[in-house]
């Protein structure tokens, strides 16, 4: 940036926000407006603020965010589809003083990985489980997910999901919250500044609880998929708020007493 000559009375502006240094130089490949980018950013802001970059190990899923390890400047493992929480379990058990998180989409966590999800929480593993729920399988081209809404059109529910063919949207977060091993369960979104601030607080709290060995922290982020939903990012966020929030309402689902 060139330095202009400033008028004597012009105010000095400080930098109050910049891209976290805990992201790598590689820019995200995600579609424009995709919630993954915001979650990655907020997660790494939290890691930077807590000063735990050297002690954090993440586990990436299979899905659009399979390349998360290219963007987050921490040690990471790539897990098989659905297995991120099992991988994270072993990492945490063997390195109990590190901060360990798993990061999964709705197929990874609530379809193929359902058993691992339930049992990791049931064991109360001291990890943070991040669940990005956009009710669709983005990476593979927009197929139906367990969390897809009734009537929602996807490539495998082209006329809209029906109960007869495919059953009901799965509210896995509420199920997980019933388990005593779940210490903190929060549902968030990233479509407004306030929502993003709330997510960041939830993540910061989760790392603190992990330090205190309280049990599993489970954070769902209801998110968008502009490409899969065939909307612009703004339209997608509005649609999400209008249609997904009634079924998946953001809020603190389980908080410590």
């Amino acid at each position, binding site marked *: 940036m060139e330095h202009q000559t*400033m008028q004597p009375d012009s105010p000095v502006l400080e930098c109050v*926000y910049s891209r976290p240094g805990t992201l790598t130089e590689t820019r995200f490949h995600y579609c*424009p407006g995709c919630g993954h980018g915001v979650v990655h950013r907020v997660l790494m802001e939290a890691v930077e603020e807590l000063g735990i970059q050297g002690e954090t190990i993440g586990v990436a899923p299979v899905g659009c965010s399979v390349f998360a390890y290219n963007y987050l400047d921490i040690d990471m493992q790539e897990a098989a589809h659905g297995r991120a929480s099992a991988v994270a379990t072993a990492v945490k058990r063997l390195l109990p003083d590190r901060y360990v998180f798993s990061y999964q989409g709705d197929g990874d966590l609530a379809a193929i990985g359902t058993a691992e999800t339930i049992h990791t929480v049931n064991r109360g593993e001291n990890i943070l489980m991040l669940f990005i729920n956009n009710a669709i399988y983005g990476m593979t081209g927009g197929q139906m997910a367990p969390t897809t809404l009734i009537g929602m059109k996807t490539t495998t529910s082209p006329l809209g999901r029906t109960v007869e063919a495919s059953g009901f949207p799965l509210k896995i977060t509420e199920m997980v919250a019933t388990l005593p091993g779940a210490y903190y369960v929060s549902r968030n979104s990233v479509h407004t500044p306030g929502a993003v601030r709330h997510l960041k607080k939830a993540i910061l709290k989760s790392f603190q609880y992990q330090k205190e060995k309280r049990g599993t922290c489970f954070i769902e982020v209801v998110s968008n998929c502009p490409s899969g939903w065939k909307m612009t990012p*703004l339209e997608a966020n509005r649609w999400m708020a209008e249609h997904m929030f009634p079924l998946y309402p953001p809020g603190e689902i389980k908080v410590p007493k």
Partner: protein
Amino acid sequence: MAIRGSVSFETEVCKGCELCIDACPQESLGLSSGINAQGYHYAVLVKDNCTGCVNCALVCPDAVITVYRENRKGGKAPVAVISNVTGNITVTLDDERKNP
């Protein structure tokens, strides 16, 4: 007088998703007329009333936004002094001084 602020964008990384434009309470942001090398119209400041509230940066999925804000509390040394932000600013601080 409102707190003064400004933002800068990594225009080559911005994908023109418009979430920042929607999030800005001051309607300070818009899309450029030109496109970057990726083929996207990118976000730019279109007004000079930015307050440095950070809302835009909070919702940005690609972390392209840096936010600056006037420090009225004083005492602290500035982290960065804003000078020329991007080539796309239509109103500069100097101009604002001249045209209140």
